[in-house]
């Protein structure tokens, strides 16, 4: 446990140093931050957008916003949490371009085709998530996929815990309706 804490602290210290160097214009340091967090952001972006193409664009946008906003990062939360909030806000505001909308299903079909065991549940869940309003979808992503408590998720989304709970309740009710009986009818 003590070793684990020490490792975490070293990682945080290292991250703090990377952030400080990035602020001073050290591009290599920021590239390192990108490499350290891109998978986390990409996963979030995919769950929120339901599209590989959008997820890639959103990941890139997140790091661009983060770089430009580095001066506003005060270090009172973990860099990853700060980055996560940027990504989530971008995902909520994300407006798919028509072309991306058209290509989303093609991209997904390609992805499915490349999987060893393509599962229809996964596709149904993806479509059901996309049928939710963005803020409800964010509540599901944060609590169900990222395992945050309601309070933590509310803090990330910048809303009251009661609001988060309500969004989650509404999202679950809608998802249950969409996914029941193995069918999906948005």
């Amino acid at each position, binding site marked *: 446990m003590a070793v684990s804490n020490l490792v975490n602290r070293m990682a945080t210290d290292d991250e703090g140093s990377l952030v400080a160097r990035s602020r001073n214009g050290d*591009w290599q340091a*920021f*590239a390192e931050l*990108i*490499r350290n967090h*891109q*998978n986390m952001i*990409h*996963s979030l972006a*995919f*769950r929120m957008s339901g599209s*590989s193409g959008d*997820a*890639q664009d959103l*990941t*890139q946008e997140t*790091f*661009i916003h983060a*770089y*430009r906003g580095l001066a506003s990062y005060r270090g009172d939360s973990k860099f990853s949490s700060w980055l996560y909030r940027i990504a989530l806000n971008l995902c909520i505001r994300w407006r798919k371009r028509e072309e991306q909308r058209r290509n989303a299903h093609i991209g997904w079909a390609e*992805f499915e085709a490349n*999987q060893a065991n393509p*599962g229809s*549940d*996964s596709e149904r*869940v*993806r479509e059901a*998530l996309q049928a939710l309003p963005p803020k409800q979808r964010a509540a*599901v992503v944060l609590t*169900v*996929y990222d395992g945050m408590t309601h309070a933590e998720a509310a803090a990330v989304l910048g809303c009251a815990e009661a609001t988060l709970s309500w969004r989650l309740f509404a999202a*679950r009710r809608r*998802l*249950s309706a969409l*996914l*029941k009986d193995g069918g999906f009818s948005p």
Partner: protein
Amino acid sequence: MNRDELDHLLRSLRVPEATEEFREALPGSVFSAITRGEGAHKTRRLTLGFAAAAACGLLIGFLLWHRPLSYERQAAAMEDGRTLHDLLTRYPGRLQAIIQDATGLHTQVSDRGEVSTSNPVWLEIKDGSDQQVVVTFSGQRIRCEGHDVVVLTDTSGDVMLVGDGFFWSRGATVGVAGTVQIRAGKISQTRDHSPVSL
């Protein structure tokens, strides 16, 4: 479907891993987007700067064009009737006098709409550095050098100021201090007035 079943089903969503190509290219694409963006940002700032300068220039030009008239210009506008024309349309039948002095343009307006505007006159009163221009109508009462005077016109159109122990006309004065210079005249009502900024 209960909550556990729903969560279990939701967790079946598989997230495709970002391709190796994307992961490797991401830092570079972010960097180029940022540098491109900064270039665009600089251009945008420059463009905005020029636009702001142009807007300021236009604003200054507009303000100069529509600037409040100087005393001399305002006095001229008073004398040739343009100011009167504008204010008469604003206060029909109620305008008693317009006074231009060092503090600006003032109006004297009656509560009742029965002021005769048939014989408009202008007066310029100078006492040392103090000066004022008054536009009023024959029969109206104004203050002149501390005296309450009535403005009158005779048949030839000459203006007279008549008050208690005070008389002024072009040819004769009574009770008017030696430092005071008065000029007066009728305002023609037939001229075509162009608007004047007040």
